[in-house]
């Protein structure tokens, strides 16, 4: 019983993390049809930004909440700048090329940004555990839960809810849906697709940085954290169906719970259970759980 409960809570926390890193990726793919490898860099930049912010607030004598807000604000600001520079400076020259070629463009940028991180923050690793300690623990029966983890799930739920509301009930969200559905028709009706692309990419970048920022206190912020995140986020997004926010949500829940179950029951398979789940889903649903079948074009 305790194991089942532990699997459930661990799974939820892991799913929250996966959703936060996957949602930006799936948004960018849904609108722009770009599988963005640079997402790992956004995550890493967010995490480093958060670590810097935690460093600032740990030295100053600020209340914990202010420190946490500074952490998120700094990471999102970095995401905003980075996203804007990349989309306007590099990516727009690759529009219209093969999907796979655009993936390689983002891969090249990812390689470059890995070294840029090392140039800015150096090669040593940073700890940013203070917010995690400040949040404290809560005991439910025999199980000890970190309040920070509960907050993480809450943030993921908030992002999911906000995203859903923004897509369905705001003017920009409706325009986005139109562009996703048919880019050319949308352009013919006077929607400025270029602006939609830029805004979407920047929002995706900010979401990636947010994912890095909230995870920073839980991990050791060091070089190479972006590499692992990309493949993980890809696996989640492909499981749910590329370009679908609901897909990212369900995908991260499935993958998160499966991984937690593996960690508690069969630790040997922990490293690849995520990819096994993804491969299994793709066998039965070749384009993920939440993608509608496309008519074949002759």
């Amino acid at each position, binding site marked *: 019983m305790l194991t089942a409960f532990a699997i459930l809570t661990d799974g939820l926390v892991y799913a929250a993390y996966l959703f936060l890193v996957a949602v930006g990726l799936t948004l960018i793919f849904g609108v722009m049809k770009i599988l963005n490898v640079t997402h790992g860099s956004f995550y890493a930049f967010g995490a480093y930004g958060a670590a810097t912010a935690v460093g600032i607030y740990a030295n100053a004598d600020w209340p914990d909440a202010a420190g946490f807000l500074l952490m998120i604000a700094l990471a999102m600001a970095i995401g905003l700048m980075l996203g804007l520079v990349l989309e306007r400076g590099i990516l727009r020259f690759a529009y219209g090329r093969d*999907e796979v070629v655009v993936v390689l463009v983002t891969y090249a*940028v*990812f*390689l470059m940004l890995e070294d840029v991180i090392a140039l800015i923050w150096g090669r040593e690793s940073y700890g940013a555990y203070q917010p995690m300690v400040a949040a404290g623990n809560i005991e439910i029966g025999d199980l000890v839960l970190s309040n920070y983890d509960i907050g993480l799930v809450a943030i993921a739920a908030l992002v999911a809810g906000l995203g859903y509301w923004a897509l369905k009930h705001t003017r920009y969200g409706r325009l986005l849906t139109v562009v996703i559905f048919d880019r050319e028709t949308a352009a013919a009706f006077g929607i400025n697709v270029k602006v939609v692309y830029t805004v979407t990419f920047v929002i995706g970048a900010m979401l990636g940085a947010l994912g890095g920022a909230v995870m920073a206190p839980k991990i050791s912020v060091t070089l190479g954290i972006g590499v692992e995140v990309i493949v993980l986020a890809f696996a989640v997004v*492909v499981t749910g169906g590329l370009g679908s926010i609901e897909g990212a949500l369900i995908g991260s829940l499935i993958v998160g719970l499966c991984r937690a179950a593996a960690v508690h029951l069969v630790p040997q398979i922990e*490293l690849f259970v995520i*990819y096994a789940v993804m491969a299994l889903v*793709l066998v039965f649903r*070749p384009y993920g759980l939440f993608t509608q079948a496309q008519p074949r074009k*002759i």
Partner: protein
Amino acid sequence: MMTPRTLAGALAFAVLAVAAPFAPAWLVSLATVAFANGLVVLGLVILWRAGLVPFGQALFYATGAYTVALIGRYTGVHDVFVTLAAGAAAAGLVAFLTGFLLARYRDIFFAMLSLAMSMILYGVLVKTETLGSTDGFHVESGTFLGFAPAGALHDLAFYWLVLAVCALAALQVAIYFDSVAGMLGAPVRDNEIRVEFLGISVNRLIHLKLVIAGVLAGLGGALAALAVEHVDPSMSYWTTSGGFVFVTILAGAGSVAAAFVGSLVFELVRSIAVDLFPGEWQIALGTALLLTILLLPGGLGSLVGRLPRLKRKTGAA
């Protein structure tokens, strides 16, 4: 079969073979690994011509490498011809089996599914402690039909072996590209439904390409394992696959030779970049890749076609 192209290729390989004893040792060992990896890139060129880019080719690379290593460790057989054949066959078998699934996918999904499969192998290798977990283990150097040289002579002999394997593979792939199945790559890339309407099974065609590319990658991995005399799980990690894709794009799919030239250029550029700017070599690599994609969509190989005199002869390569 002795077209000018084949003749030029044979000449290039002969020059490379003769030059080796006069080249510095570091260059020979660099070229050995580069040409071994060139075989993997050759396989990627076959797939790339059909519009497929696998981000998990390291699966077959590592399969070939670990097969050689395991045979050497548990049976005591070190003959390169036996172990190489076994490595290539094992990778081919894995490619044949996974091909039933992979051949159904295209574009990003193909790329990601192949990536997932290579990551599963990575996970298994990392968790297998008898195989040294993340450290991998040592591979004893191979013997050549009972001939067991040591030191510099061994390195030279092995370099010649790699060169011979590459020459054979290049010739075979060139013949394949001139066959109907090989030429159907571009039509599949442009519009596979039309190919289906011609009465050809695209899935079976792609399955065949996957097996060929898998065998080549297994061969490359087996040679690389014997060259560096060590195997570890990072051979199946996705960044290894990414490196191969990188070289494929850099070289372009224009010709068979481009795979080997591209691989050699890549290894040279990387070792020079690591030497000159140890902290920033990834920036150099990323910039090179970015500029190639944006300015030279056909890869470095397309530069040859731009030379006015050669253009007439090769036509639309």
